[in-house]
């Protein structure tokens, strides 16, 4: 295969210690290769990147882009779609719409157009895995994968309640392999099940889950975190804590961090879980980021992504059924609730974040506090929890806010004055550098995911390269990369998406104790609506895919 050389760009490749050096990147067979020692060596094709900023392709480790929930959100908001920006068909690409939840094809183009080459859907009930694979196949260009929801799965909870840790571990391994998922996701562990049973959400980690004698959210967190580590999965357990969005929920979040008991754990959209105050008194709502960030800073088993809120119309889309109901009650907007058999829940509600709302502005500020208070950028990843806090299309805006304190101040000046008293944002002077931005948008999510070939430009890495033209306006610079290369193919040329290729699906195939399968089958045939043999996704069902090894 012909060689490509991206020549003379200013490269930010934090994993390999390259911080703004002028450097050539050589590519062959979709991978980055060592630069030839012969200084006169010529590639078959050269892309002159002189004066441009070169970074690895972006990695979004937490978004909602595929599966039944996204389709439901699209269908339930014709009002949003009617006004949405239209993506016109071109010679290379298909048509679609943007809006709060972009259509399937448009999602791939929009990510690529933003310089992102990898994205992971964060919440898929295993029963919906087949749909999700089909939709991800139709999401062009980007490499992808998804996390499998387990925190309210009855088989999981039964094993934990019965102290069957070996069986639990085998089930987690079997389930990930069956769904062809990438990681284990917990969504409001125990709380969704309690709410589905009509017993209300669980308030603390030690509330007993409805239908069990003793099982608590703490047991579920500890049990699954242990299984994930024992299986040696590339990514840790991925936790959406209990009580999302409720004032005073920071205590549960801190308790969750402690409940991991030293196991690796990723706490997702942590912004939504860092609130102080009294749940019954909205006026006491405030930030508790400093306490939580301090805990994260001093415990290196923990990583987080932010779930930044941006001021716009969007859609809340979650596996957290009770949260959907809560938001519906707060906003008065339409609501979808899903109950996925023995596995999970789902809530979808349209929402608009407004900069004149004290609560919304405080949420915005709390997200930024997280970016600025976590000292080690390798343990935090950029996310908006697309589309929950806002669209992934807002990443350039967030980058600009992180790199320029005056920009944050300008937003605070327009916000309700009380915001400054309820969080520490206005005291934080830190400004991100290009290198740190490259970490939190690429290198650290790839590292947190255990994806060795992503997020860097060293030899052996997938040749995902984003090339930006420098601009005084940081937001503008990151909104419109000049060139984007995905696995060696030029997919964005002169800011236009020029490809309709299919990306690679990442999944895991952990080894597990096969003796447990008859028990799972037995359980399955008692309680599920589909046949056991129709449940697992076969390899032949997938298009381009790659198994990421467990350690």
């Amino acid at each position: 295969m012909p060689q490509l050389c991206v020549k003379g760009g200013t490269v930010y490749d934090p994993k390999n210690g390259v911080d703004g050096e002028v450097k050539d990147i050589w590519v062959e067979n979709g991978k980055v290769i060592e630069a030839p020692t012969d200084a006169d060596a010529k590639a078959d094709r050269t892309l002159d990147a002189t004066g441009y900023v070169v970074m690895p392709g972006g990695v979004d480790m937490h978004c909602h882009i595929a599966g039944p929930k996204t389709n439901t959100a699209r269908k339930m908001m014709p009002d949003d779609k009617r006004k949405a920006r239209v993506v016109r068909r071109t010679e290379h690409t298909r048509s679609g719409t943007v809006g709060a939840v972009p259509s399937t094809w448009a999602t791939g183009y929009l990510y690529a157009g933003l310089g992102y080459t990898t994205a992971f859907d964060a919440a898929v009930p295993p029963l919906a895995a087949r749909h999700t694979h089909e939709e991800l196949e139709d999401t062009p260009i980007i490499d992808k994968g998804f996390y499998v929801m387990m925190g309210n799965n009855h088989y999981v909870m039964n094993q934990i309640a019965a102290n069957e840790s070996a069986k639990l571990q085998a089930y987690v391994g079997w389930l990930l392999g069956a769904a062809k998922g990438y990681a284990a996701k917990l969504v409001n562990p125990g709380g969704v099940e309690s709410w589905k049973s009509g017993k209300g959400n669980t308030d603390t980690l030690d509330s007993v889950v409805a239908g069990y004698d003793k099982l608590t959210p703490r047991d579920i967190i500890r049990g699954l975190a242990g299984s994930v580590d024992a299986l040696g999965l590339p990514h840790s357990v991925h936790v959406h804590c209990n009580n999302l969005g409720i004032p005073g929920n920071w205590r549960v979040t801190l308790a969750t961090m402690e409940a991991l008991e030293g196991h690796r754990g990723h706490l997702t959209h942590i912004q939504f879980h860092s609130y102080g105050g009294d749940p019954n008194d909205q006026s006491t709502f405030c930030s508790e980021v400093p306490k939580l960030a301090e805990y994260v800073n001093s415990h290196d088993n923990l990583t987080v992504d932010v779930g930044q809120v941006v001021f716009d119309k969007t859609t809340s889309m979650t596996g957290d059924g009770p949260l959907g109901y809560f938001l519906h009650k707060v906003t008065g907007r339409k609501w979808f609730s899903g109950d996925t058999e023995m596995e999970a829940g789902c809530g979808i509600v349209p929402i608009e974040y407004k900069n004149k709302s004290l609560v919304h502005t405080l949420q915005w500020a709390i997200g930024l506090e997280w970016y600025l208070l976590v000292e080690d950028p390798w343990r935090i990843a950029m996310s908006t929890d697309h589309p929950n806090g806002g669209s992934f299309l807002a990443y350039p805006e967030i980058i600009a806010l992180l790199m320029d304190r005056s920009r944050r101040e300008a937003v605070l000046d327009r916000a309700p004055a009380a915001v400054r008293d309820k969080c520490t944002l206005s005291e934080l002077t830190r400004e991100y550098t290009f290198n740190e931005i490259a970490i939190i948008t690429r290198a650290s999510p790839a590292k947190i995911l255990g994806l060795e070939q992503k997020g860097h430009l060293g030899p052996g890495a997938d040749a995902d390269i984003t090339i930006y033209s420098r601009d005084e306006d940081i937001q503008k610079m990151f909104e419109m990369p000049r060139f984007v290369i995905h696995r060696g193919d030029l997919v964005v040329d002169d800011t236009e998406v020029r490809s309709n290729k299919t990306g690679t699906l990442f999944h895991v195939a952990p080894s597990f104790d096969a003796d447990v399968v008859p028990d799972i089958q037995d359980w399955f045939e008692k309680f599920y609506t589909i046949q056991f043999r129709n449940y697992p996704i076969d390899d032949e069902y997938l298009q381009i895919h790659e198994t990421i090894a467990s350690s």
Partner: protein
Amino acid sequence: MPLTIRLRVKTSIPVEVDSIRLETVREQSSDQVKATLVQYGNKQVSLGEFFDVDGSAADDQMVWEGDCSHVKLIGCELSSGSIRVEGNAGMHLGAEMTGGEITVTGDTADWVGAEMHGGRIHVHGNAGHLPGAVYRGGFKGMTGGEILINGNAGNEIGHAMRRGLIAVGGRSGDAPGFNMIAGTVLLFGESGIRPGPGMKRGSIIFFDGASAPDMLPTFRRSGLCQPTFLRTYLLHLKSLNFPVPEGLLEASYQRFSGDFLELGKGEILVRAA
């Protein structure tokens, strides 16, 4: 002479003229207006295929002539100036308009002034269903302005309207004020069943008390009144040559509150004998 767009070729296939906007034709010659592409079924054709165009809109006036009952989206998103339709108009007349005035001498179809924000629409004939309504799936209907219909109107008048005034001189269909958030609906003729289902706030007034429909069980009787605000509204309508029957200014009204399935701050007034 105002810009006059006269229907020459009658068509049963709808023509959508949202590209013909007063804001742009103001600066254009009649030939340029003629050349503007409009949607004809699933094709785009120039306006001239169906219409003759004369005059100029430099004085902010546009006139549509002929039976335009299959011409959709006349005056949509209008922000200022005046549009007159001499004859009938099709669906979505004045939808999402923010200002200016539209007068129709004949009848209009469904969705008159849907999701409008300001300005005035005066239909001298009848209107179809859903005047001032929200489009399906949306959050709120008209948020301001006035829709005056001298004749009859169909179902779901002011569906989810948020603010503004709708007055219907003739018969009105079922479920006026469906899910209305606020605003005022004045109904002078007979009405269909189930007024104000799901209304949160706002006022629906039946001036023909004898023919007013039964209230839904989620509304409660809350006294007899002579609201002064009605006087203001009625005098305003009179000043716009809307046919207001005699004797309304002095009448008293039976008041019902609801819908108690929702916020319950809405009111329905029925003229007492």
